[in-house]
């Protein structure tokens, strides 16, 4: 779907030779930190931006050249804005519905997304979460084959988040293809059939949530200590553990160890702590999360 896409803004390389594919009737998450190039990639697929290099095909069409035939078939949820400041929430949704040939029932969708209570509220007085839900409603009202949702649950309360997730899952169940960007791990893990992790405009990992988290060396040990580590800490622990494990510094007071998390690894970690006068606050053993995958691949944390 996206092949060798490169996008530049001035000197900033936003998307750097990105290639990825999306399967129909599935949920694909494009996961990455802010500024990773997620929105730029999505907006190129939506036809807002022309690829500076590489090519993009959406439902087999060129988003630029075939824009008119593509647009009715896709739904777009923008990250913010997208409505007149004085328009009432339901009025806006009804307007977008009128532009389509076979729209969904507006009242049903309003009800599903809990927009009934603010239906007559002008857009500018809606809360951030209500604006997000309206934007999602506008993306799906035209019964599209493919929906692009950009950070769908940013700023939503937990209840609205669940309603959004359930709606997206139901869309997939009915055969809609969904591409979403997110920087929330739990969202990607819960919803996505396929996850593409991108950073600095490059694809750094792809797979199902299971493949990404449970693949080789799927377990982790997380060490949190009471005071900052002594100098040279990750390196000396890495030396003690040997080449089968990988040690990543999460911050000054916590480390992530991936690899065979067995008794001998734990013993080595404890011994190292004792030897360096480090007092562990917690030492936990667990399955690798997407957060860990990202840290391992980039040496940085995804959120924060």
């Amino acid at each position, binding site marked *: 779907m996206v092949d060798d896409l490169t996008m530049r803004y001035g000197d900033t390389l936003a998307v750097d030779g990105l290639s990825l594919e999306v399967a129909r009737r599935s949920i694909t998450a494009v996961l990455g930190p802010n500024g990773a190039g997620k929105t730029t990639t999505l907006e190129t697929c939506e036809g807002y931006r022309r690829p500076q290099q590489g090519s993009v095909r959406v439902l087999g069409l060129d988003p630029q050249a075939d824009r008119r035939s593509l647009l*009715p078939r896709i739904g777009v949820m923008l990250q913010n804005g997208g409505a*007149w400041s004085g328009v009432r929430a339901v009025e806006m949704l009804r307007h977008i519905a*009128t532009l*389509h040939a076979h729209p969904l029932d507006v009242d049903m969708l309003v009800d599903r997304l809990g927009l009934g209570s603010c239906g007559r509220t002008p857009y500018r007085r809606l809360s951030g979460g209500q604006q997000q839900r309206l934007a999602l409603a506008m993306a799906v009202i035209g019964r599209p084959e493919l929906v692009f949702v950009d950070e769908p649950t940013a700023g939503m309360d937990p209840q609205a988040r669940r309603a959004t997730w359930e709606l997206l899952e139901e869309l997939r169940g009915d*055969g809609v293809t969904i591409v979403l960007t997110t920087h929330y791990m739990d969202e990607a893990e819960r919803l996505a059939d396929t996850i593409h992790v991108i950073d600095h405009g490059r694809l750094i990992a792809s797979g199902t949530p299971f493949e990404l988290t449970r693949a080789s060396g799927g377990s982790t040990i997380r060490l949190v200590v009471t005071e900052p580590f002594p100098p040279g800490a990750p390196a000396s622990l890495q030396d003690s553990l040997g080449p089968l494990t990988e040690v990543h510094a999460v911050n000054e007071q916590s480390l992530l160890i991936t690899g065979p998390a067995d008794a001998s690894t734990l013993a080595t970690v404890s011994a190292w702590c004792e030897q360096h006068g480090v007092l562990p606050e917690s030492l936990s053993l667990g399955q690798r999360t997407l957060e860990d995958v990202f840290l391992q691949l980039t040496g940085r944390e995804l959120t924060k």
Partner: protein
Amino acid sequence: MTASPHTSGTFTPQPGAAPLATQVLAQTRMETKLLLRNGEQLLLAIVIPVIVLVGGVLAAEHIGLSFPAGPVDTLTPGVLALGVMSTSFTSLAIATGFERRYGVLKRLGASPLPRSGLLMGKVGSLLAVEVLQFAVIGAVAAVLGWSPTPGVVGAVGAVLVVLLGTAAFASLGLLLAGALRAEATLAAANLVYLLLLAGGAVVIPSTDYGAFGHVAALLPSGALGNGLRAALMDGAMPVVPLLVLGVWTAVGTVLTSRTFKWE
């Protein structure tokens, strides 16, 4: 994912664009509704022209300003022109500037509504508002004693001047809105409106401006005002004003299509 427990059939894809006419009509209705809901826009569209008309006529009677054809007959075509200018230039520029700012144009750009349809919707809403303005201003003028007899040629001329004036000012309004930030558009559109109201020969005939009148007649405001006066007062086909407005429309359209930024 066919085994999903969530299969309901509610959202089964059935994409498609509504017929273009339906979309344009919906867009026209929406834009008109929003324009009429906005107090400041209503002030600009209706209240100010009516104040200018009533105030102008009363002032002319009190201080004995001499209009050869009488104050109501002279001022009313100019006030109609002012109404066209306020709607198709100032209101349109401000509304479009904020549509850019709030991502409305971006959002509609991803809907089935084509850009040409969006433009048609905007023109439709301008004309709808202008009809309303003409009804109100015309009624007030009639109370003040206005009874124009333009004949067929003058009536056709007036309609042409209004249409071409709307096109000229709309292209210039969109030029502003598509290039400047929303706040700058707001300020510039109001400033230009005030300058043209005072010195643009829209309400007062350009012949009353002395030497500057020759320049004012070439401004879109002067051409619109002079054109409506020629059509409604003399029953003439205002050829020169129409030509002037045609040139402004062409210049405005070319510049706008080259510079307009949708985001």
